[in-house]
């Protein structure tokens, strides 16, 4: 058995880079340091069937085919479409994402990533009011007040608390004991159990509660005795805790990005953090889900100027989530072809988006059998980045880390597949 060290976990946005993989006969048979979900990704215990060969739909059946054929078909679908959509991108590396952006340009497509259905609201909010963040190490070394709002890290980012909150830091030698942990969540969760303060607000009232806290932080009184189910006195108490922090950090997740008002909840949360800097030091970090969802937003931004939902139909990049998001295009029946990569909209999109997917040609670049591949016309299986291929990923707060290759694979990488589609599309466009 061979031990491969300093492996980067290709699962969640915590992007742990201290994993040790136990390798036997070119297979990962065990891990050290990974949490249970990271571990199961490495050792394939997810129970998912892996595609070993490209597949093409013929009637109700999938038949095995070659990469060449699958790529030829994919290139034709994309080149012929008037409003192709390229969606996913969050579980692959930045080089593949970069080829994706070029392919979207070449085909006059709309390119969007899974941020669209998770932290897209955070992006819209930071575009309106700003983005004061820090890297994880700052939290570990300095934070004495830690707030998790609308997220349950014990469940979705299992090592997040242990790495950032429980661990000892330079100015926080006692670790957890040196910090006040606040969890804001309408539900009780494994994370809220660990908190010093659990603000159990009413569902869909994040904006109201934040409006109240901001008002109190600024020394003004609030109109009502109770906001979002939280009594006035407790709002005042919390405001004091926040103002008296030496270094405060707000982590926020899907519970607030997707409650009523979506990006406006994040907008006002960002403003709260900004204003707290008049009294102490505060920053925030979005609890991003897929390990490289952040990377796509970075790549897409430096190449096109916009982070997601980029519409290249006129040749120029244009951007307006609400119009140019994957769900917008599907639900408005605008998209007439779709390429899905490194994600599973078939499992996560609303019904009328999926109905549109069923009506149009779908190409899936995807290692596993998923609800998306079930609806696909072409399935192209890649090697898995972070295990079978190298590449860059960006941690949730933007720290880029080189993903390691642990075992070999015969399959093409996402990047190679995309390059071949791109090259073929170029030929097809040139001959038009």
């Amino acid at each position: 058995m061979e031990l491969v060290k300093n492996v980067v976990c290709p699962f969640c946005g915590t992007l742990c880079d201290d994993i040790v993989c136990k390798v036997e006969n070119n297979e990962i048979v065990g891990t050290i340091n990974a949490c249970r979900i990271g571990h199961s990704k490495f050792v394939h215990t997810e129970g998912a069937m892996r595609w070993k060969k490209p597949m093409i739909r013929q009637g109700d059946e999938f038949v095995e085919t070659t990469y060449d054929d699958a790529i030829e078909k994919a290139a034709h679908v994309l080149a012929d479409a008037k409003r192709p959509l390229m969606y996913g991108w969050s579980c692959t590396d930045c080089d593949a994402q970069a080829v994706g952006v070029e392919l979207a340009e070449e085909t006059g497509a709309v390119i969007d990533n899974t941020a669209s259905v998770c932290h897209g609201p955070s992006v819209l909010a930071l575009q309106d009011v700003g983005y004061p963040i820090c890297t994880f190490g700052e939290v570990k070394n300095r934070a004495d007040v830690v707030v998790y709002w609308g997220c349950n890290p014990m469940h979705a980012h299992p090592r997040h608390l242990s790495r950032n909150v429980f661990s000892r830091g330079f100015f926080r030698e006692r670790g957890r004991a040196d910090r006040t942990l606040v969890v804001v969540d309408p539900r009780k969760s494994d994370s809220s159990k660990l908190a010093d303060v659990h603000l159990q607000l009413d569902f869909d009232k994040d904006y109201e509660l934040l409006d109240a806290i901001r008002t109190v932080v600024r020394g003004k009184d609030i109109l009502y005795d109770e906001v979002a189910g939280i009594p006035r006195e407790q709002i005042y108490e919390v405001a004091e805790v926040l103002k008296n922090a030496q270094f405060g950090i707000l982590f926020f997740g899907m519970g607030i990005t997707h409650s009523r008002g979506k990006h406006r909840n994040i907008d006002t949360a960002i403003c709260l953090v900004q204003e707290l800097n008049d009294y102490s030091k505060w920053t925030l970090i979005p609890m991003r889900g897929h390990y490289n969802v952040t990377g796509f937003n970075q790549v897409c931004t430096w190449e096109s100027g916009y982070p997601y939902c980029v519409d290249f139909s006129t040749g120029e990049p244009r951007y307006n989530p609400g119009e140019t998001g994957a769900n917008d295009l599907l639900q408005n029946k605008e998209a007439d072809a779709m390429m899905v990569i490194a994600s599973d909209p078939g499992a996560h999109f609303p019904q009328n988006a999926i109905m549109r997917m069923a009506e149009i040609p779908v190409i899936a670049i995807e290692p596993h059998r998923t609800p998306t591949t079930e609806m696909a016309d072409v399935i192209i299986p890649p090697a898995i980045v972070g295990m079978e291929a190298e590449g860059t990923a960006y941690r949730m707060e933007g720290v880029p880390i080189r993903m390691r290759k642990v075992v070999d694979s015969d399959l093409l990488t996402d990047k190679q597949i995309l390059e071949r589609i791109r090259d073929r599309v170029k030929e097809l466009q040139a001959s038009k």
Partner: protein
Amino acid sequence: MQKIIKNGMIYDPLNNIDGEKMDICIDNGKIVDSVANDAEVIDASGKIVMAGGVDPHTHIAGAKVNVGRMYRPEDSKRDVMARGGGMRAGSGFSVPSTFMTGYRYAQMGYTTAMEAAMPPLLARHTHEEFHDMPIIDHAAFPLFGNNWFIMKYLKEGDLDKTAAYSAWLLRATKGYAIKIVNPAGTEAWAWGGNVHGINDPVPYFDVTGADIIKGLAEVNEMLGLPHAIHLHCNDLGHPGNYETTIASFDIPKNIVPKPKYGHRDKILYATHVQFHCYGGTNWRDFVSAAPKVADYVNKSDHIVIDIGQVTLDETTTMTADGPMEYDLHSLNGLKWANCDVEMETGSGVVPFIYAARAPVPASQWGVGMELFLEIKDPRKICLTTDSPNAGPFTRYPRVMAWLMSNKYRMNLIENELHKWAQTKTTVATLDREYSLYEIAQVTRATSAKVLGLSDTKGHLGVGADADIAVYDINPETQDLSAEYMAVEKAFSNAAYVLKDGEIVVLDGTMVKPDLYGRTYWINTKYKPEVEQEVLVDVEKWFRQYYSVNFENYPVQEDYIPRSVPLLGDSVPGEASGKEPAIEGASK
């Protein structure tokens, strides 16, 4: 393959050539003595020829630059380009996307640009963006001025360890120079504070800005780096800050430059000095102190500055000076981004509108111009806008035209600028006009030399890289002071631009957009035995206090496809080595 640029008027200050008509011969990407008769002829008659522009301080690649793009879709929408002609699509007025950045620099005849602030932990990000930035040669300056190891070793008075760590960090980040931003201040900002002046100690680490400047200036020469320490002084933007500025300039003045590569003869490079030349005590009694700072520079031989000229645009400010950006946000109320980077540095981003009719921006415009016009020797000046802080780099041609035409300036002062430009600064009384020779000096020659790259950059002598700009400007037939709009236009759209001997721009249009430039970085070690000791500390702190593993920290060579390491192993046995021949290759 061979080319000859015929009959152009050559402006090449590093070789003392001032408008003479000469032919430039090119072979294999280099400028050579002569070429064969069948060499491709580029007719430059009636045009001027300069070396490709060298921008020593700009913000074009990396984490905070990308935040600037990402959080300002309204800025991206102001300037958009479609895919076509081999060019990639892009957008961004003040912070263009990477491809667009390369094209826009090239169209102005610039062929080298330096990213002036790279957080070491996020270095990989900067290099990834370089990878998607066509044409220009480039390098990035890692941030040292608030780094925990640096502060710890300086506190201990251990320059050897400071030097060994610095060399390691340059290698690990593939960085080029020692960048210092608000020394001690950004670490203070990690607790929400700042330092004031150079003698205010940073919390816990207990060293001052002055200690950091002095220590790193010494380390710079211990390592023999090509570039000088690159300093963004404390107290940026505060009325009364000029005293801090002059005191900071004075700190390293007795250190002797000892570059192991290049021909730098200065010890200090001070950046965007316009922001550091303010007198008074607040914005009411504020008055320009540019004449005082200019006077200091005129009397000193150890320093080169860049200006950071305000261009009177709506732009995006971005800097590792975290507390400054928070102050700016408090002042203008516009959206504030920030990123504190563990153990190393911080940064902030805020949009800013330099409205000509507003008193402060009008004065800042005047302050920058005063520096340009009152510092007598252009060998001490680099033209910058601290892009995009005081304005986007795409405005360089306008700044050049302002410098060359008093009429242009007076039109602006009299018709568009708030009267503070006249009452708070002396700009309206200065009628000096830059010559083309001086323009070449402040846009290529000074910068190439102080960066340590003047063997191959910033001039048109034999052996230089064939990075060449030909502009449709004719000083024999045009009154350049009167025809300032034509000058601005010509500098915006070069007639020809050659990069490594290839024509990349023709009549202002990209004709070879898929050429990619080199990455310069410093590959040096300081006393291996000291480095061993230092790495024991480093690894320990990584285990305890960093959030990435030591082994995953250094930027892998994969990120540097056109790598030009300087010093170290790449130049065995040479005190002042030549860079290895690496052609600017297509991607």
